[in-house]
């Protein structure tokens, strides 16, 4: 057991899923305030057909090749969502729902075909649905590490710009920030994070890794900076702990374990979160109740009239 965990490949995989979790936490916080949580879900599902097509066309299973296919297909999905929303009366979330199911259905169909063409389950592409970090080779790990670090770097470099872009885009445009440019950067970072995660976490679970750390962080803080930092922390823990646990069983998928860890952090935050946690709110309510009960009727009124 120990030898497996400390084999150099596992260490690299562990590092890369940790960094992936951190990247997902940062860009997820931005998606949260852009009120586009479903977007990450739609785009990660939309990446699947691209993975299969890239494999069928190039016959390679290197992460880098598959990432490009995934990115193209996710971007096409994003474009469709925008076109549907802009040119019809269909709302944005309905458009996301449509694209999610259509692209995912197409992906599964292509997967079945490719499994027939490549004898048996040789392609191993079905791993992309639930994710299998252990299947990654060193070049995959490096590709993922590099891109994840790039995402993190850009998010933190543009910290001030994200803030105004999310809080007041109209004012931001007024003082000369290109909202179109920020939209492009945001979509590019989101898609990058999704596609580098699909091998380790899988297309279904990737959305959860993007959304959950950000939502959990929201329960602890009232500052955007802190939220971003906490989301990176929660994301990193989810990524590493999930990978660690899945390494115990041979052939265990990584994605579900990462999501289980992320969800546990969320449930803990939901109850005990310092700012919005259920327990804290309840205690505050009881405290006020007691205060009111202690005062004789009418005394408050007198206090106000002073």
């Amino acid at each position: 057991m120990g030898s497996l965990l400390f084999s150099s490949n596992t260490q690299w995989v562990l590092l890369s899923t940790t960094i992936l979790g951190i990247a997902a936490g940062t860009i997820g916080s931005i998606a949260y305030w852009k009120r586009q949580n479903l977007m990450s879900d739609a785009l990660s599902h939309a990446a699947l057909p691209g993975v299969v097509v890239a494999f069928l066309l190039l016959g390679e299973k290197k992460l880098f090749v598959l990432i490009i296919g995934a990115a193209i297909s996710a971007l096409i999905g994003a474009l469709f969502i925008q076109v549907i929303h802009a040119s019809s009366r269909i709302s944005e979330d309905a458009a996301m729902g449509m694209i999610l199911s259509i692209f995912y259905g197409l992906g599964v169909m292509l997967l079945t075909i490719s499994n027939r063409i490549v004898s048996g389950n040789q392609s191993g592409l079905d791993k992309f649905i639930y994710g299998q970090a252990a299947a990654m080779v060193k070049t995959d790990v490096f590709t993922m590490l590099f891109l994840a670090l790039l995402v993190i770097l850009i998010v933190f470099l543009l910290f001030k710009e994200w803030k105004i872009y999310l809080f007041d885009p109209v004012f931001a445009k007024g003082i000369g920030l290109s909202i179109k440019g920020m939209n492009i950067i945001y979509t590019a970072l989101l898609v990058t994070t999704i596609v580098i995660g699909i091998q380790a976490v899988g297309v279904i679970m990737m959305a959860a890794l993007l959304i959950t750390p950000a939502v959990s962080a929201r329960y602890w803080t009232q500052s955007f900076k802190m939220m971003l930092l906490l989301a990176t922390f929660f994301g990193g823990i989810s990524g590493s702990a999930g990978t660690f646990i899945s390494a115990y069983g041979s052939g265990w998928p990584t994605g579900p374990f990462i999501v289980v860890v992320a969800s546990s952090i969320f449930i803990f935050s939901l109850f005990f979160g310092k700012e919005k946690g259920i327990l804290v709110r309840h205690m505050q309510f009881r405290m006020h109740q007691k205060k009111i009960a202690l005062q004789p009727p009418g005394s408050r009124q007198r206090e106000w009239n002073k």
Partner: protein
Amino acid sequence: MTEQVLTVENLAAAYRKNTVLHDIHFTVNAGSLTGIVGPNGAGKSTLIKTILGLHPALSGKVSFFQSTYEKAKRKIGYVPQRGSVDWDFPTTALDVVTMGLYGQIGWFKWPSRFHKAKAYESLEKMGMADYANRQISQLSGGQQQRVFLARALVQNAEIYFMDEPLAGVDAATERAIMAILKELKAAGKTVMVVHHDLQTVRDYFDHVLLLNRTVIQYGKTDHVFTKENIARTYGGNMRWMGVENQDGLPSIQQ
């Protein structure tokens, strides 16, 4: 001759199906405090947004300080409607005011202590110093509006556009905001304010722009804000309070 700070020629704008604004012509002089007045749906907010290039213009030309918007950008301050942003966003009042300095700070750089001090000064001016580190979600509507105004002040612009800064604020905030607007005017700045309360137009503004899809009339309040012009702007659905008085205060009956 006073300096012309804003010239609008033949401006038109539309939303999906309807033309909202057409044939807009007017020239604003430096140091004027203008109320933009008109019924709901007259295109008041759209006018501001189109002038500032935040909404696409169908035709026409807008020049600031005899130059283009791009060149004059630093001299232009904008206060959007309070409801246009997400007040749940986790940030403090001071932080929001600092956003007014982002253009000066430059992109990709972080605000320095100097910028924070400037933002604080501006909050103080709006009587909001005690709330500097308060979460914006915990501020009342009037306080949020003061924060928005402080953010505009810190920009130190030459011409300000404000979209209903007095909507839904209490009397104290209204007085505080008007005091600042008059101070800006006294300092030679130009201010254009979308305004809804016909009763106060005379007290607040030295110029009035009556708008209903197009400019009904623009000029000095004394000349423009007459019964006839107001009736033309609002389509005659008016009931006049104190009719015996020639300058009676108009109110609207829908």
